[in-house]
């Protein structure tokens, strides 16, 4: 079975983002970019399925400008077999992303599609669910365990009250949660080998998808700053302050 994995290039999670002075957006000039952590987990899961003999091929897809090839190469170095870049200079919204991916799914006919549960830039948590809707497939979101059994995939999901397990008919869509696995590091020989793996470049026009805006970004502001606090010297003082000053206990 073929596994399709999606990856997104985002601001490195260790970098604290700054809002532009004119409040039009966040400032992404000269900041370190990386593979979205949830996507890294998705790649790892796909590679593990291949190592377990369940997946025959792992195809990685990313949408964005030429720079996203760097993240595709990272995924290839981690064990994916080939890459697809859908080249666009825009930052398509989730529904457009899902429409582009649905076309790739139709072309590639994977048995399983694995995405991260959310990208740490837009924090949307939408693309996987939307792709599932457009392809009519079942969705196993926030997965902490994935088991392929015959014509079905059993997905243990992290839900508010604990864990829930669902069985989905293959082909299906899975989105990863943090505890699904611990991604490996790419070794230097694998990074070198990844440079030779095939990488196709397509455009939204090739796929017959018109990118449409569903929202307009009016403003981006920094969150309200918290007023500086104080340090107390003892537990006694802390309890006194909470009782008499903050009045919360």
């Amino acid at each position, binding site marked *: 079975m073929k596994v399709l994995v999606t990856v997104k290039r985002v*601001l490195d*999670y260790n970098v604290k983002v700054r*809002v532009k002075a004119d409040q039009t957006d*966040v400032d992404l000039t000269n900041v370190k970019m990386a593979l979205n952590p949830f996507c890294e987990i998705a790649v790892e899961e796909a590679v593990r399925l291949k190592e377990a003999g369940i997946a025959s091929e792992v195809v990685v897809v990313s949408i964005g400008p030429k720079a996203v090839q760097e993240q595709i190469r990272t995924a290839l170095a981690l064990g994916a077999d080939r890459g697809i870049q859908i080249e666009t200079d825009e930052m398509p*919204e*989730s*529904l457009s992303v899902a429409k582009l991916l649905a076309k790739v799914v139709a072309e590639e006919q994977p048995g399983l599609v694995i995405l991260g549960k959310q990208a740490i830039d*837009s*924090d949307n*948590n*939408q*693309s996987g*669910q*939307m*792709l*599932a*809707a457009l392809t*009519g497939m*079942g*969705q196993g*979101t*926030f997965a*902490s365990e994935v088991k392929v059994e015959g014509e079905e995939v059993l997905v243990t999901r*992290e*839900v*508010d*009250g*604990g864990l*829930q*397990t*669902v*069985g*989905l*008919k293959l082909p*299906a869509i899975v989105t990863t949660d*943090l*505890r699904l696995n611990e991604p490996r590091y790419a070794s230097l020989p694998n990074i070198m080998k990844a440079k030779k793996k095939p990488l196709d470049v397509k455009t939204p026009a090739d796929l017959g998808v018109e990118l449409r*805006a569903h*929202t*307009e*970004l009016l*403003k*981006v*502001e*920094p*969150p309200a700053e*918290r*007023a500086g*606090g*104080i*340090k*107390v010297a003892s*537990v006694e003082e*802390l*309890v006194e*302050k*909470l009782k008499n000053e*903050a009045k*919360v*206990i």
Partner: protein
Amino acid sequence: MAILIVAEHDNATLKGATLHAVSAAAQIGGDVAVLVAGEGCQAVADEAAKVAGVAKVLLADNAAYGHQLAENVAPLVAELGKDFSHILAPATTTGKNLLPRVAALLDVGQISEIVAVEGADTFKRPIYAGNAIATVKSLDAIKVITVRGTAFDAAAAEGGSASVEAVGAAHDAGKSRFVGEEVAVSERPELTAARVVISGGRGMGNGENFALIEKVADKLGAAVGASRAAVDAGFVPNDMQVGQTGKIVAPELYIAVGISGAIQHLAGMKDSKVIVAINKDEEAPIFQVADYGLVADLFEAVPELEGKL
């Protein structure tokens, strides 16, 4: 304008998260209908009908909706939603699982985790783990939105007298089945609804030591949370995790014990009214957001705190 809210429930009771979504709907303005989709969930519909501000309750009671699998519920919501200007759900794991699927079926965008209503089509939402707040305007005819509960007060659970109307044919997509669940048992208040939350981090050392903060929690009637580090280390189950990838809380008092204050944790608690940090590392970033900081060994400070309450 008419607003459809997808109720969060477990077939027996209406979850508090729904009440926060009702408040958000009130700010948007318009007739509010609540959809209760489940199996054997008449009691939930009756409860929803009493919520202040709800004009109508739509009850879809069918075996196909028993576990609220998105594959079955999404077509129902999309079908009913065509008659509404807004479709809202709480930004819980259930809401996040369902609404993007609904939006895609309606061919509209979805706006996640709004924290403020600026107008009928304009909303504020956090991006980059809460390090920036975006104001976005929806360009779609139907606005599909999840609501961050901690950003809106709960609507009154009593005072309404909505009619309950049975709706919708059964949609069984046949793509998914419920296999089982493991529900974490806790006698303490629910994390996202608690007035006081006390959380432990990697500094707790192990799971047994969480008993120290549990004792404080019991004295304060607080919920117990944890940082991702404590969860990843296996000290406590992951449904206790507070942070960008866990639960978002905004209690009146948040006590962080042995938590350094990584960006991902702060995203889940920095809207708390009063933050207290107990940490032996005085350089820990948590002190930058704490209203009251105590530099001390938690193994001495926490039992002492319990004694003084």
